[in-house]
């Protein structure tokens, strides 16, 4: 197994891609805001806002946590449901 790259090396590698994707997200949200109609109470926007909040936290499991934001819950009693 090679020596894993340092954090600054990964940031160097990923920065432009991250920047581009964040701008994409911003542009898509802007498109929604420019359009007629109100979607403030659409639960999907709530999921997006929750995901954005997760993105701004400091933990290495953001991808998994955001997956769970967009997931239906698992019920342990599904056989009885």
């Amino acid at each position, binding site marked *: 197994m*090679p020596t894993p790259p340092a954090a600054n090396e990964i940031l160097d590698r990923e920065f432009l891609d991250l920047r581009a994707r964040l701008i994409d997200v911003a542009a898509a949200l802007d498109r929604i805001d420019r359009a007629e109609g109100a979607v403030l109470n659409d639960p999907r926007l709530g999921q997006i806002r929750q995901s954005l909040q997760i993105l701004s936290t400091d933990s290495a499991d953001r991808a998994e946590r955001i997956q769970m934001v967009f*997931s239906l*819950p698992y*019920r342990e009693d*599904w056989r009885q449901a």
Partner: protein
Amino acid sequence: MYFFDPHIHMAARTTDDFQTLAKMGCVVVGEPAFWMGYDRSGANSFYDYFRQLTEWEPKRAANYGIRHHSWMGINAKEAEDVGFAREVIATLPEFLQRPTVLGVGEIGLHKCTRNEVTTLLELIDLGMKTKEQLLFHTPHLEDKYPGTRMILDILRGDSRVNHGRVCIDHCEEHTIRPVLEEGYWAGITLYPVTKANPQRAVDMVEIYGAERILVNSSADWGPSDPFAVPAFILAMRRRGHPASRIRKLVYDNPLRFFRQSRNFRFAGPEEQPSEA
């Protein structure tokens, strides 16, 4: 680098894709029976599809030096009508004996309904009666997490199931850990928008290791990339992973998994003797 695509729907692809895959180093493909994009009108439609997978596709692949193997089953999207599913299940034993069939798959859940579970239990039972390997489809998007947990609950309740002979496919960041922890093979599918991509697949390998992971494209009739496994190979190389580790993921792992099927007989290009 030689590689397998252990989950790809070549029945939906032209021979151009076989040709390009062969040029890229693909030596084996695994093709599970799946949903063709609309619900079939009768069990005979499935019968003809199973014939396509076991008779025609191996010939198409062989023209390009690729071994084609398949899995037999009724997919989760068409499992809701239990009576219809039972008609299809009744045809499976004939096909499970065919020489290129690896086992029962891809079976699983779609919207996680009671009827889907009923059909799934009967498919698992069929597989266990003839000691087949099993390949599971986990649901898309918001249903993936609960559906994966339900599949694991079902399998945990059946002592006949050998976890090492089962692949739970389409794993993502929130489902891969329990799959690996319970001793199954975890399929990571590189499919645009609704599943993982090469970068995230490399992340999961870096977090969980390379054991019991199978990387695949699941390329089909929709917007998908039949060359996703080579894209994964490139992503691994660019991150500095050694060739031995990449080969493990795209060749040794699927070879080890497929070799557990009684019908899988394969001597890879590097196992064949060189010319003197």
